[in-house]
């Protein structure tokens, strides 16, 4: 090998090392503040082209997935960890809630994740005070945003197949070209029930702990699918687009439940009841009411 060859090989090795490290740092960049985290996964950029979808999402419970669940998360941190388990608050523990309620926190530093956990406690415990409201205002920046589903969680059901998400890539059902907006990749996973079931079911944390926020997916798989049902979560819960109507939406609840009533008045035979009546020899005004309550959904009711 001459000097020129040695130089070429060395340069190639250095370039590989440099760009490899750069990619790694982009994928593993850890935010130190909530604003930094929000900037890394900025939903407002999506709004520029997807205004209607963004507006639907803004009205959904996904857009307030943290602040709408403060009580439960507070109880986990302040009672579960602090008292019942006698376990310190760490990012791994916080992620037992936030991996679903704010998936971007995966990219927060250990310190920021713990700070967010403490803010959850403050926001709930000091609700209505200046400090509590300030914490809630900060936490409102965290949610299940566009990139939570279209990037971070998109391929998580088949992580072995898809690997970690590419930073900045938008994964969607069609992979339609977004021109200069962003890179797009088709990923059918996002159209499947198993995609939603990552969070809307029994959750298994990294350390094996099971969290039963709801068990929709259990009845979906074990009862609905087992009886031949074939609709996906998205078939019903995306009928109103990215508003993801559920138990809070009376239209979808009404659609999912059936009630049929038969009221049959009749005269009961005198002298045949143990009940004390005003006149024992008179016909007894009576009625039979038959009620048929139907669950037309793909999961048990109530749940969620």
């Amino acid at each position, binding site marked *: 090998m001459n000097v020129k060859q040695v130089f070429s090989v060395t340069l190639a090795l250095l370039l590989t090392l440099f760009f490899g490290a750069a990619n790694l740092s982009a994928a593993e960049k850890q935010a130190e503040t909530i604003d930094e985290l929000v900037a890394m996964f900025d939903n407002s950029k999506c709004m520029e082209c997807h205004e209607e979808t963004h507006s639907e999402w803004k009205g959904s419970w996904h857009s307030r997935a943290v602040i709408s669940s403060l009580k439960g998360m507070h109880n986990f941190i302040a009672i*579960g960890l602090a008292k019942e388990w006698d376990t310190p608050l760490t990012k791994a523990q916080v992620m037992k809630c936030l991996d679903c309620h704010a998936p971007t926190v995966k990219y927060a530093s250990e310190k920021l994740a713990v700070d967010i956990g403490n803010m959850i406690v403050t926001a709930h415990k000091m609700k209505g005070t200046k400090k509590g409201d300030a914490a809630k205002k900060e936490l409102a920046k965290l949610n299940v945003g566009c990139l939570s589903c279209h990037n971070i969680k998109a391929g998580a059901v088949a992580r072995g197949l898809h690997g970690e998400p590419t930073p900045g890539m938008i994964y969607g059902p069609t992979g339609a070209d977004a021109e200069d907006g962003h890179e797009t990749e088709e990923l059918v996973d996002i159209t499947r029930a198993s995609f939603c079931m990552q969070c809307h079911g029994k959750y298994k944390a990294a350390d094996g702990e099971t969290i039963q926020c709801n068990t929709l997916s259990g009845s979906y798989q074990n009862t609905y699918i087992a009886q031949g049902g074939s609709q996906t979560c998205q078939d019903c819960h995306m009928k109103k687009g990215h508003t993801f109507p559920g138990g809070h939406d009376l239209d979808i609840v009404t659609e999912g439940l059936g009630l049929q009533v038969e009221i049959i008045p009749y005269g009961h035979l005198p002298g045949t009841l143990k009940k004390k009546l005003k006149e024992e020899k008179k016909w007894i005004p*009576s*009625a*039979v*009411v038959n009620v048929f309550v139907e669950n037309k959904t793909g999961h048990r*009711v109530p749940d969620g």
Partner: protein
Amino acid sequence: MVLDVTAKNLDEKDPKKQLLFSDQKVWWEIGKDLHGRMRYGAWQIKEIVDLTLQPMETRKERFLMNFDTDIETVEIEVKLSYFISGKKGDVIHSEKKTFEYDFD
């Protein structure tokens, strides 16, 4: 989810005395920890007793009511309510029927 069935005596003017019959059916779940104690925290619940209405299931409930012999005008109401939380419930479906008894 709650099913309420009531029967009222419409000839009675005092609303507090109108109720002749009431019954209720509730669908819900009981979350239990590993010691079999009822729990609400998602991190505490490891098993459930499932008292919900299962998908594709139609449950038939029958209510038999016998009123006193001087009752003539009755209103029967059936209401199905969905509770998004323990505190907030909405009536999803309801049906009401009024009829008179005349055995003379």
